[in-house]
């Protein structure tokens, strides 16, 4: 799987729709002054991958991730984050095709039947009412369907591949069984 694009709108300090395009691999750096929104981007990735705990996103309840207004802007009614990925071996991977093809309204992963690569977009929305939506390629699905795509990749429930600010120093002091679950996810 390769990351192609992140889109945020109404998520935390990202009132207006903003995009991070990823073209080519390697290393990217997110930079800027204190409080400008860098960690919010990291939070948006954890969130669209299915983070359930508001506390892990520095909030007290999940609605805290919706843009709350600023000096010149009113609060938003909804937060939406989309992740676009490329699966170079979509035709080889029954799991991804199945999730995208399967029941619950999930849709076929984009790509020609004979083509190798397939691009797909996962989206998570949250409304002020508390109502949530999860989508694959614009079609409603369950949160489980999104999480299944990333099982065993480090972007699943343990998401050890996302290290939040301040957490790197905690890894060595984590509990023995917590570390076990990380290795288990990788296994």
């Amino acid at each position, binding site marked *: 799987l*390769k*990351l192609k694009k992140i889109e945020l709108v109404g998520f*935390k*300090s990202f*009132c*207006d729709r*903003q*995009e*991070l*395009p*990823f073209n*080519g*691999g*390697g*290393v*990217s*750096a*997110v*930079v*800027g*002054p204190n*409080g*400008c*929104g*860098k*960690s*919010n*981007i*990291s939070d948006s990735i954890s969130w669209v991958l299915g983070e359930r705990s508001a506390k892990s996103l520095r909030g007290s309840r999940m609605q805290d991730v919706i843009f709350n*207004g*600023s000096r*010149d*802007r009113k609060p938003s009614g909804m937060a939406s984050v989309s992740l676009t*990925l490329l699966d170079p071996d979509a035709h080889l991977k029954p799991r991804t095709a199945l999730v995208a093809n399967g029941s619950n309204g999930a849709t076929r992963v984009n790509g020609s039947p004979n083509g190798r690569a397939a691009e797909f977009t996962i989206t998570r929305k949250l409304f002020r009412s508390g109502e949530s939506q999860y989508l694959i390629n614009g079609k409603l699905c369950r949160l489980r369907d999104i999480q299944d795509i*990333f099982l065993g*990749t*480090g*972007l699943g429930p343990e998401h*050890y*591949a*996302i*290290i*939040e*600010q*301040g*957490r*790197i*120093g905690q*890894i*060595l*002091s984590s509990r*023995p*069984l917590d*570390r*076990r679950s*990380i*290795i*288990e996810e*990788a*296994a």
Partner: protein
Amino acid sequence: SRKQFNEAFEEININFRGMFATLFGGGVGEMRLIETEGTSEAGIEIVASPPGKRLQNVALLSGGEKSLAAIGLLMAIFQYKPSPFCVLDEVDAALDDSNIVRFRRLLQQMAGQTQFILITHAKTTMEVAQTLYGVIMQEPGVSRVVSVKIGEHDGDAATNGTPYA
């Protein structure tokens, strides 16, 4: 399955020993399985002893040493099973200049398999990026992103003639 776990554990441990030796220039860093009360599953203990220092409770290590060892463990897992991408938010905050250089070198080594997204204030770390996402708040409280592609030579993709790879 337990067999699957043990295989993964062994292989990640071999990677971690290597990572630790590289990042610390020696010393002993590895994982050990320990009996845990109340469960039949073994927990994982981490042993980390920089070169020349005696083995003792990892909690006594310095902030920078803990960060570096944790980075090594993470990379050891990626060596075993690369993630599609990885987000590292200010993991270099406690590292001194020479350890930031080691961290950079490690990133360049691992970047082929995993796409790294680094959030950082450190100029040294930024220099290893091929793309920079500048986040700004021109209007108070409202974030915007500007992305800038950096060439692989001298920060200018246009001058070296090779297409952005």
